[in-house]
């Protein structure tokens, strides 16, 4: 009886809603899919033989791996120096640069992909300018080829690489570089022997993140690539749309999943092992280590402590000598990266005000006609309204379920916590198309395909993972003796949570809600599978537009979507600013 009572009070019970949702919508279907792919109960590998028997399949598979590897490599090659230069910049410049990386990261991927169509297209910005200048007579074929895929993919993924790198590099103890120098290490040696090894966790998180994202994300390749640039994920999505041949789809999905898992375990374990006694246990899921959320928070706190003089660190960080060359090359490099990250968005914003019958750059005249068209056309503003409603529902559901789960996980045995966290984070850890297929199946079983409820549940899967990551990070800094203190003053567990814990973790909870909303608001891959064509969210409507005829209204929509992250940054800034610990300087003044 006593043990039974104890079990009921166990904090692990709080993870039940999250786990139940995960199991029903994702867990059971994915097992079902796996069994299908191996022809259960007969158990054979025929489906896999069949897959590899078709040269076209093998070609697509290799192409998928190639694109993902190359895109990750480019991101790393461009991202590492960028991150390094950001970290070594002076404080105010660093804050600005990080903001300039975060804004595209939070901006709708569809809007950014659309920007590249506008730039690279036959009548796009580049061709127009070149023809105008008389350099060429007929437009160059810049779009619908592999090059365009890489340009678009790297553009989408680069912030995902830079942010973990910056976070890892900012965490490197400044005095270590000084110590290495004091022991006679030349600047470059100090960099290679001290700074670089310590930045490897960032390299790992960034690379994993980009690679897995590339594997499952077909939107950009499909929009910018040619017919030959198909990814396995495009294939899978296409199969769902045309013939719903479950064994075939399941087989492709599991091959994709196998690649992801292989790379995850390889990179995840190897680097951790090479590092020896890593500060974080290797068992922790890599998403839990994703420093983006931590970085955002640190970013704000840094933004708000204007007295912290960190300029001296700039000198310590300088890896090379201060020749005039590195003084020019560095800033120039960062400038180019920033132009690459931000100019597509700016061009779309400018073009959205064009007065002509179709989009042009630079616009011949200014008008608000495309905005009028967006707000006037029910198919557009209806889609936006649907997306907002779904986003709010997802934010509420996943914030409640995710916060409970994070709280429960925080209080369970570390080993169990690692396992359960990994389970809850699966939907954001594996290629999104695989999650989409499993979710589709799960919602078919529940009869929720094509319903708002279905979409909300499907999107909440990933959103819960995001909330758990953010709230867990906040809870890790929460001093549990405060709860003991409350209980010692006769506050019941519920009173303790409401009066002490919740107010103190509120910034994390609000941050979680914001990111959950953004996740939902931009979700396309899973939503397109489960919407059943009856519900049209804004990303779906935009995607349809990009694929078929491009209605210039989409420029106005994209421009508006680029405002969303700025708004959210302000919200986060306000909540986190208000919760920041009081500055010690002002305290002294008050105390005396």
């Amino acid at each position: 009886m006593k043990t039974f009572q104890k079990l009921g009070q166990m904090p692990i019970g709080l993870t039940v809603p999250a786990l139940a949702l995960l199991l029903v919508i994702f867990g059971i279907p994915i097992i079902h899919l796996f069994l299908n792919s191996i022809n259960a109960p007969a158990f054979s590998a025929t489906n896999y033989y069949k897959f590899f028997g078709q040269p076209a399949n093998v070609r697509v598979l290799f192409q998928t791996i190639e694109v993902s590897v190359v895109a990750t490599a480019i991101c790393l090659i461009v991202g590492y120096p960028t991150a390094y230069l950001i970290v070594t910049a002076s404080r105010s410049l660093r804050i600005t640069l990080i903001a300039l990386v975060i804004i595209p990261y939070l901006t709708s991927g569809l809007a950014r992909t659309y920007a590249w169509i506008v730039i690279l297209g036959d009548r796009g910005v580049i061709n127009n300018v070149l023809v105008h200048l008389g350099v060429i007579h007929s437009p160059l074929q810049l779009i619908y080829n592999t090059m365009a895929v890489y340009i678009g993919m790297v553009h989408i993924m680069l912030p995902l690489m830079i942010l973990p790198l910056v976070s890892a590099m900012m965490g490197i103890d400044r005095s270590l570089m000084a110590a290495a120098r004091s022991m006679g290490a030349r600047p470059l040696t100090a960099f290679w022997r001290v700074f670089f090894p310590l930045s490897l966790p960032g390299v790992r998180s960034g690379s994993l993140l980009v690679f897995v994202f590339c594997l499952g994300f077909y939107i950009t390749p499909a929009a910018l690539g040619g017919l030959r640039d198909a990814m396995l994920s495009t294939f899978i999505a296409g199969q769902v749309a045309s013939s719903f041949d479950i064994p075939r789809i399941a087989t492709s999905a599991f091959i994709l999943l196998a690649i992801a898992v292989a790379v995850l375990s390889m990179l995840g374990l190897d680097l951790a092992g090479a590092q020896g006694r890593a500060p974080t246990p290797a068992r922790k899921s890599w998403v839990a280590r994703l420093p983006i959320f931590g970085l955002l928070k640190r970013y704000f706190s840094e933004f708000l402590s204007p007295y912290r003089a960190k300029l001296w660190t700039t000198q310590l960080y300088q890896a090379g000598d201060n020749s005039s060359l590195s003084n020019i090359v560095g800033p120039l490099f960062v400038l180019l990266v920033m132009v690459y990250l931000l100019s597509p968005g700016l061009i779309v914003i400018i073009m959205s005000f064009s007065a002509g019958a179709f989009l042009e750059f630079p616009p011949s005249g200014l008008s608000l006609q495309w905005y009028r068209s967006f707000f006037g056309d029910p198919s557009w503003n209806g889609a936006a309204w649907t997306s907002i409603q779904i986003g709010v529902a997802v934010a509420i559901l996943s914030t409640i379920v995710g916060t409970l789960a994070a709280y429960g996980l925080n209080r369970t045995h570390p080993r169990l916590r690692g396992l359960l966290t990994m389970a809850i984070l699966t939907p954001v850890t594996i290629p999104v198309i695989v999650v989409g297929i499993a979710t589709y199946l799960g919602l078919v079983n529940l009869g929720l395909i094509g319903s708002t409820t279905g979409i909300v549940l499907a999107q909440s899967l990933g959103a819960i993972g995001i909330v758990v990551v953010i709230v867990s990070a906040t809870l890790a800094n929460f001093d549990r003796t405060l709860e003991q203190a409350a209980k010692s003053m006769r506050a019941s567990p519920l009173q303790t949570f409401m009066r002490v814990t919740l107010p103190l973790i509120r910034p994390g909870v609000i941050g979680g809600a914001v990111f959950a909303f953004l996740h939902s608001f931009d979700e396309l891959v899973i939503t397109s599978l489960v919407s059943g064509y009856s519900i049209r969210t804004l990303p779906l409507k935009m995607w349809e537009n990009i694929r078929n005829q491009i209605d210039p209204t989409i420029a106005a929509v994209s421009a508006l979507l680029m405002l969303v992250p700025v708004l959210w940054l302000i919200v986060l800034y306000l909540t986190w600013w208000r919760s920041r610990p009081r500055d010690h300087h002002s305290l002294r003044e008050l105390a005396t």
Partner: protein
Amino acid sequence: MHAPIQNSEVAALHESPVLPQIEFSSVTKTYGKVTAVRDLSMTVSRGEFLTILGPSGSGKTTTLMLLAGFEAPTAGDILIAGRSVAAVPSYRRDQGIVFQSYALFPHLTVTRNLEFPLEMRGINTAERTTRVRRMLERVHLSDLGGRMPSQLSGGQQQRVALARALIADPPFLLLDEPLGALDRNLREQMQIEMKSLHKEFGITTVCVTHDQEEALTLSDRIVVMRAGRIEQTDSPEALYDRPATRFVAKFLGEANIFENHNFKIESEAEQPSGTVAMIRPERICIVATDAGKRGDGDLRQFVTGIVDDMIYAGPLRKYHVRVGSSVFIVREHVAARQPIFRPGDGVCLNWLRSDIRFVAT
């Protein structure tokens, strides 16, 4: 009088005048393979200030957490006023706790922090206000009610924590390293203040610390813990003067243990087996080798040695004196106006035979 509380039964437990207020009976607590507390039995009487003293990792905090109800004993039982509280969760108990980190709620003002325990006991707003005001006056913080905890100095935070623990008139008070976070001067000041608060409120207090000075200053009785077990329980004077074991002798103050010495110890009592002889450094006199015997010379033992080192420590001089193969620590008040010896000087050490103690090894 205690505050009116919902759970009057538990409150009533504290009223019994005869029984020891707190009793540990053979309590064991294990975490996986680690035994944090092993077969611990002790009692705390009403109004007593009891300190649990021990090195880091000896199980002090665990003992306190068991008493506070944040941990359940693996074996044994804890009785409060004669009744087992093993099944009573901490939030149904009536106690005041000062945490090592103070655990002031960072999102509430000082006043709201002090109101919290009253509010949880269902006390109305008007009474809360007067009690908070009175308590703030008592701890000299009347002006700071509106501040956030982060706007207070360490000593002020400590006093708020103490005030918050006392405000609801709990029957006993638990302190976990209460002065650990303060600097030395403030610590001495707070020791005096806590002592007077304890006297004024007369509240049964269990304090945990690794600081022997704090323990000696504050306590009526001290429990010395080592590796999860009680080593000795006694009054501060008795502990210092008659330590039962070598561990206690060395943990509380300094001790000269007679080992590898090349002379026979003269003492009044027979040396029990399994013990070593010990003498406190301040019980040893240091004189020049040619100094004559004093009046009580017959009661003393004399040995000769060579000064290894002299350390000047404020009001004290500390000598390390080599006698054969062992080194003796001698502590002498500067005010004694003795000649100062330098390293290499030959000296004569002597002590009263009755100052020799035998401690278990």
